[in-house]
């Protein structure tokens, strides 16, 4: 057995030194200025026109989807929705820097990542209407998307549970010998959970190729960041775990792209985790169940509205000669129509037949669940008017 020395790297001092601010500054990467020009000294990451336009379109699409679905919720057509307004750059810019083989494990405010991967409007709608076309079979509340074909893990409500899972998933990818990594999104609020600590520490010790992507948007529902932690954001914790860390302006899609590209490169080449903290602001209400006017000022929101990531990207595309105002307007209008049409379509699709209620609890339906289903079916047959969603199809 080789001798170990856990003090090998520790230096000595002979006065009581209280380390109050033991970090070197963790600066925030910014590339784009609000007017679409680059910061002095900054250079844009290598982006083709196609990719750049796809990024913009995805951000714009999500904003349309968010607006439309909030309205649909107000009209009582869906039960719940959760928008990412103001934060579109974080999810879209990051996923654009990944390979399609990379697994996405998200919190819930990353619909941009899913849209970028190719999730169709119809798919979004089927999930939100819990209808029988949803591959998740309508089992979860709206916005809990999941699509194996797109390597997008089904979302789970309990916060931060996906963080140690992402470490494990990435370990599995490494063992399987492919170059894919996992990206794991979460909020600065979720980073207070014990699972965050477990996940980051395990990923560091077990050398898991995972990019932890924290969206620090200043709030966890009503709780402001200053009541969530006392340190220098989430980035400072990465250092404590011995994880390479990048802080980025989450409203600057070029910066997010560049940071994620570098993080992915490191994760793949060095087989290790990387932490990204994207600084942004949740311009939206937490969800359709929330009203932020109870805990923050209009003024504060307006300051952030001025940092709109979509407008910033438009300015840049324009400066590249890649933006056509009228074409874009047409595209926006098309997208609105598409969303509206898909919504109406999905609304009409029924939920799964009742047999589905006992499926997927186990790999096959065990005898006791078959018995429960049979009892339920004969009950529904007796009271068809009480269970209108399924009674018409009970055999």
């Amino acid at each position, binding site marked *: 057995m080789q001798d170990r020395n856990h003090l090998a790297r520790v230096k000595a001092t002979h006065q009581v030194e209280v380390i109050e601010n033991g970090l070197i500054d963790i600066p925030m990467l910014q590339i784009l200025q609000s007017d679409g020009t680059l910061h002095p000294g900054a250079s844009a990451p290598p982006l083709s026109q196609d990719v750049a336009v796809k990024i913009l379109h995805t951000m714009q699409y999500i904003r349309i989807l968010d607006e439309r679905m909030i309205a649909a919720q107000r009209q009582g057509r869906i039960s719940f929705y959760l928008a990412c307004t103001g934060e579109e750059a974080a999810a879209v810019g990051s996923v654009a820097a990944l390979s399609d083989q990379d697994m996405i494990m998200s919190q819930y405010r990353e619909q941009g990542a899913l849209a970028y991967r190719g999730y169709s409007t119809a798919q979004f709608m089927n999930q939100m209407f819990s209808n029988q076309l949803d591959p998740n079979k309508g089992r979860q509340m709206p916005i809990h998307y999941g699509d194996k074909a797109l390597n997008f893990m089904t979302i789970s*409500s309990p916060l931060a549970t996906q963080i140690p899972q992402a470490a494990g998933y990435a370990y599995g990818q490494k063992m399987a010998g492919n170059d894919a990594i996992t990206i794991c999104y979460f909020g600065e609020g979720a980073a207070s*959970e014990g699972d965050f600590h477990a996940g980051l520490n395990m990923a560091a010790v077990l050398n898991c190729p995972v990019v932890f992507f924290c969206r620090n948007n200043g709030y966890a*529902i009503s709780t402001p960041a200053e009541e969530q932690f006392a340190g220098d954001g989430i980035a400072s914790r990465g250092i404590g775990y011995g994880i390479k860390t990048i802080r980025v302006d989450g409203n600057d899609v070029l910066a997010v792209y560049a940071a994620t590209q570098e993080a992915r490169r490191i994760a793949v080449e060095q087989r290790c985790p990387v932490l990204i903290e994207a600084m942004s602001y949740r311009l939206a209400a937490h969800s359709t169940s929330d009203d932020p006017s109870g805990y923050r000022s209009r003024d504060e929101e307006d300051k952030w509205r001025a940092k709109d990531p979509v407008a910033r990207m438009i300015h840049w595309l324009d400066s590249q000669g890649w933006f056509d105002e009228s074409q874009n307007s047409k595209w926006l209008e098309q997208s609105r129509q598409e969303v509206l049409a898909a919504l109406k379509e999905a609304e009409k699709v029924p939920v*799964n037949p*009742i047999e589905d209620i006992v499926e997927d*609890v186990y790999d096959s339906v065990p005898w006791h669940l078959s018995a429960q289903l049979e009892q339920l079916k004969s009950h529904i047959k007796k009271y068809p008017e009480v269970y209108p*969603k399924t009674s018409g199809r009970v055999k």
Partner: protein
Amino acid sequence: MARMNLLQAVNNALTIAMEQDERVMVFGEDVGHFGGVFRATSHLQEKFGKPRCFNTPLTEQGIIGFANGLAAQGAVPVAEIQFGDYIFPAFDQIVNETAKFRYRSGGQFSCGTLTIRTPYGGGIAGGHYHSQSPEAFFAHCPGLKIVIPRDPYQAKGLLLASIRDDNPVLFMEPKRLYRASVADVPEDDFELPLGKADLVQEGRDITLVGWGAQVEILQKAAQMSLQDGISCEVIDLRSILPWDRLMVAESVMKTGRLLINHEAPLTGGFASEIAAAIQEQCFLYLEAPIARVCGLDTPYPLAHEKEYMPDEYKTYEAIKRTMTY
């Protein structure tokens, strides 16, 4: 008397508890300035100051760990877990710590002053992470008390008793009744007893036992049964741990039949404990098997929520089956 919904009754009880005992502190995710996502803690921070009503970071294991220490110190913590579905990260702190603190220290230290409030239950289109009824997970843990009110009046009286009881209490609030259930509630301080069930309705033929939002379901089913000439006795258990076996047993000795209803899945739900205990105690009185009308043994579904729920129709059918056994 004032008209209050269940949320207002909870808020009113918290206000009174904080007024009367300055050791009472209320905390959890978003409970501070905002007053909680359901607004159960509205205005408490305003009235009693931030040190006594505050937001915590987003960590249920931390909230209960912190609350355990605070209780052991002698303060009176009322900790909120935002949804019953999110209580599981705190399971270790509750089951291994809260519940065993007094025992392991020979009574030197305890978490007796702790109350944990959490909304639970389905019927709000919440799917399996906003609908669970986790009472049975805790009912297997000696050292805890578990209390569930069925309406605003019960909520106020039971919550005040829970906060003042010298044992840790898990106080579960039926969230689908938060605004739906409105009743006359005394404005003054009052307590209702822990560990005692409540006889909601007398009857001769069958005893129906439930708690929380399901008591209303039992009452509806009892009403339906009346038309068949079946007279149901309805008992609200109120306390799941320790539970009032005496009242249930006495009722069953009278009626000869028992039905228990809960939202949680059948297998290992608290109905099984009641059934097991009552079949033992009332063996010679039972004229039919004890019936359990419960959730299916699946995660709580979204699209099929209505089908999943142990509603009045399923209960009514089970009553008839039991009567004609």
